[in-house]
Every structure is written in structure tokens, then in C-alpha cells.
């Protein structure tokens, strides 16, 4: 009789672990299924002409080059604005800002910025960049809109990795006659860089895949040529996917999935780069 509770506890534990394991596997399944399905459906579409050609026959044939190039432009454009701004803000918050009402407001603003639906950013971008600043529907306006959306991710990951650099390094550096800025540049930034880069890539990856923010600000339904300046509109992979999936009748399904596959590979490659940077830095870290 005395052993019964023990057996029960073991049984409960085993049941519990089984349940938790099943749940964990369940989270992996949709990801694997999605990627596999898109791979299988989209792979037949992939060819040199598809990757390097222009769409024709009302986008029902040909390639998606303008959309690929457009997404690269938008990602680079977003990086140009959001990376310096985001890192500078993170340095300010982590290294300079005291705990004042102002900095608390800044932090709350950043957190809330991350929670705004992307279509709202799109509308804001339309109002501010496209109309008020008169940039028109353009790569510039779309990049700026995506930058605002990306900023919270970059700022919070960069701030976190700056804060993870041990305080003692700063104290020692100051005690050796370094200024605060020398300490940040030579020690803190250097050590935090891999973490910052990871955040930057993850933020840009999200920007590359978004449709709503560029919908009103820079995305073109169809363009017969590549954009020639930042003030031109551009095709982009996520928007193109939306267009050919919903707006064009009698669209060959393999082109839809081929486009989805290219977008997926683009984003997953960025993810992979971030992972490699992170694990390399962890192996090299000296603290």
C-alpha cells in the first residue's frame, strides 16, 4: 500500500512528459508542413527564366525578377534608415540615459511601436511620406515606412545585447582613462556587435516579408522595367504574391508557389545568416 503513491507520481510524471513532448512536436509540424508544401508546389516553377526574367502575358508567364530586385532594394533601403537610427537609440538607452520620466516614455513608446499592426504603419507612411513629404509612391517612402516598423525590433535587441556586456568592462576601461565614448566604441560595441547584427537581420527579415506597409507607399501592381531611382515605385515579392494570388484570374498555381518559395528562401537565408553569426560569436566570446 505504501508504494502506490510513488507509482502514481511516476505515472503522472510520465504522462506529463509525454504530453509536453507531443505539444513540442505539434509546434514543429506546421512549420515543416508549410515549408515542404511550398517547396513541392513551387520547385517546378523555378528556372533561370523565372528568376531572371520579366513577367509577361498579364503576369501569367515569365519571371519575377522585378519583384526580387524590388524586395532587395526595399530591404537595403530599410537598413539604411533603421540600422543607424536603431543602434544609436539603443546606445543612448543602454549607455547614456538615466532612469528619468523621459527615458521611460521612450521605452514605452518603443514597446508600443512593436505592437502596432503593420497595415497601420502603411497608412501612416501614406500620410507622412507619400503625401505630406511628397515622396510619392516610391521605394523611398516604402523604405521609410518599413524602417519605422523595424526600429523597435532593432532597438530592443541591440539594447539587450549592449546591456549584456559586463559592467566591469566599462568600469575598468574608464579607470584606465578612457572616455565613455571610447569605452563604448572599443569595448561595448565590439562585444555587443554579434547580438546587434542578429537583431538587425531579424528586423530586416520581417521588413522583407511584409505586404501591408508597402501596399500604399511603394509597391507597384506591375512594372515593365526595373525602378531607376528611389522615387520610383517598385514591385516586391510579398505584394506580387498577393497580386497573383488574388487579383489575376486564371493564374498558374505553380507561379504562385514559385514566388512564395523565392520569398521564403530569401527570408530563411537571412535567418540562417543571423544564426551563424550568433553561434560563431558565442564560441568566440571571452566572458
Amino acid at each position, binding site marked *: 500500500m505504501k508504494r502506490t503513491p510513488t507509482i502514481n507520481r511516476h505515472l503522472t510524471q510520465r504522462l506529463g512528459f509525454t504530453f509536453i513532448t507531443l505539444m513540442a512536436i505539434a509546434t514543429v509540424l506546421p512549420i515543416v508542413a508549410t515549408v515542404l508544401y511550398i517547396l513541392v508546389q513551387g520547385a517546378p516553377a523555378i528556372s533561370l527564366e523565372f528568376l531572371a526574367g520579366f513577367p509577361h502575358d498579364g503576369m501569367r508567364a515569365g519571371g519575377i525578377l522585378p519583384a526580387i530586385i524590388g524586395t532587395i532594394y526595399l530591404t537595403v533601403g530599410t537598413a539604411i534608415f533603421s540600422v543607424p537610427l536603431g543602434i544609436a537609440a539603443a546606445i543612448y538607452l543602454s549607455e547614456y540615459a538615466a532612469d528619468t520620466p523621459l527615458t521611460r516614455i521612450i521605452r514605452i513608446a518603443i514597446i508600443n511601436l512593436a505592437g502596432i499592426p503593420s497595415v497601420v504603419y502603411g497608412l501612416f507612411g501614406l500620410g507622412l511620406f507619400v503625401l505630406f513629404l511628397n515622396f510619392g509612391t516610391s521605394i523611398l517612402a516604402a523604405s521609410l515606412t518599413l524602417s519605422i516598423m523595424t526600429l523597435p525590433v532593432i532597438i530592443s535587441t541591440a539594447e539587450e545585447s549592449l546591456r549584456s556586456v*559586463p559592467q*566591469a*568592462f566599462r*568600469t*575598468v*576601461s*574608464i*579607470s*584606465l*582613462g*578612457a*572616455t565613455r565614448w*571610447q569605452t563604448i566604441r*572599443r*569595448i561595448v560595441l*565590439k*562585444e555587443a556587435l554579434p547580438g546587434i547584427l542578429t537583431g538587425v537581420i531579424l528586423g530586416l527579415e520581417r521588413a522583407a516579408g511584409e505586404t501591408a506597409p508597402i501596399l500604399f507607399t511603394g509597391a507597384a501592381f506591375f512594372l515593365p522595367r526595373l525602378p531607376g531611382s528611389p522615387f520610383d515605385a517598385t514591385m516586391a515579392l510579398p505584394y506580387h504574391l498577393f497580386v497573383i494570388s488574388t487579383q489575376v484570374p486564371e493564374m498558374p498555381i505553380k507561379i504562385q508557389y514559385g514566388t512564395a518559395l523565392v520569398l521564403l528562401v530569401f527570408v530563411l537565408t537571412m535567418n540562417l545568416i543571423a544564426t551563424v553569426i550568433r553561434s560563431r560569436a558565442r564560441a568566440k*566570446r*571571452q*566572458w
Partner: protein
Amino acid sequence: MVDKIIIENLSLQYSDGTESLRNINLGIHEKAVTVLFGPAGGGKSTLLRCLNRLNDLTEVRASAGRILIDGENVLDPSTDVIALRRKVGMVFARPVVLPMSIRENLTYGLELEGEKRRSKLDEAVERSLKLAALWDEVKDRLDDPAIALSGGQQQRLCLARSLALQPEIILLDEPTSGLDPISTGKVESALQELKKEYTIILVPHSVQQAARTADYAAFFLQGDLIEYSEGKTLFTAPKEKRTEDYVTGRFG
């Protein structure tokens, strides 16, 4: 003996109310080891951090008084703190090597002020490592990461790192608290050599270490300076009852 440092009516209180100093008056002699000792929370580290203005990094509620180093009040707001910190080197309780090679740790401070000449840097590396009694152990692996050194070696590297800047004063805040007896002995004997050239202020990690190393000793209790005299006097014939109680191990 010349007083290198004169502390006049120094009082300080941190914003969180932790440690404080009350009206400290103390003259610290040149080229000697002065030991600041007493129970934890007595204000010893606080005093050290006033001397190189490292307290600027901490929230201080109120401070008053003067610290004259070579006749200049270093607490004056117009003081060039960068120059001050080069003149007053510091070694911390926990050895903190910067995340770079042994050589880079030593040249860091010099490069901050723009020294680029390889010959000057190499010279500083060798000189400071020899002074800290570490040269023979690391001379063949100067480009290895500093973190690969043992704890005792790391602490001597930290000492060498301050020495590379050719300071005049060296502050040591319980530099051997994490070290084994052999490493502790190496640090202490290095200090005995160094005091011929440098003014050394040491917060020891035990009364025994205080007695072993002190030319002069100051006993601190809860922010007050209780007694200050030559080391051999203070540890053999203290004037104050509280000093005697602490030195003989009756409390603390």
C-alpha cells in the same frame, strides 16, 4: 616623508544610503604602502574611488571636502579626470581582464591616448609585465586571450595594465580576495618592489595582510577614520580600543 595625497574634511554619502564617509582627514605618504582597513562597509572602497573620481559613475547624494594630489584638488569640477585616472591607477577586487589578448590589455590605455608606435607599446608591455612579476610566465604567449590566464595571473595582468600607463599612485581594492596564497604572495611581493617608485594605497582582504604589507595603516569603522599611524605602531600598540579590538580579532 612627503604627503603625496592630502585628504581634507572629506565626507560623502551615496544616493542609496549604503556606504558613506564622515569628515576624513588623512595625509598619504609618497612611495610607501598605505593600508586602509576595517570591517566591510567602513568606506574604504568609497575613499579609493574618490581618489580617481570613479565615484563619478555612481549616484552620490552629497559630498564635501578636498583631496589634494600634488597640491591640486582633484574633486574640483574642472579637474581633467582622464589625466587623473592615468596618474592614479586602480586594481579591482575581481580580476577583470578585457576581452582581448594579453598584449592588447596592456596597450589599451596607451592606445586610448593615441600611442601607435609599436616600439613604445612593446616597451610598455615588457616593462609593466616585469614590474608585476608576470613577464616570465606570459612572454611567449602575449597574443593569447587574456581570459586563458589563471586567476592569479589575471590579477597581476590587471596590475601590469595600470602600470603600463606609468601612474604615480596605485589603488588596490582587495586585489587578492579571490586568489590562492601563492598568487597572493606574488602580488604582495610585487607591491614591496613597486613602493620604491609608486605611492600605493591598498585595501587588504584581511587584517593579516594589512599587518604584512602596511608601512602606514588607517583603520576605518562605519565611515569614520578611527586611527592612523605607522603600520608597526598601529598593529602592535594601537591607541584606540576599537582598533585594538579589531586587530586582535575581537570583532569584525
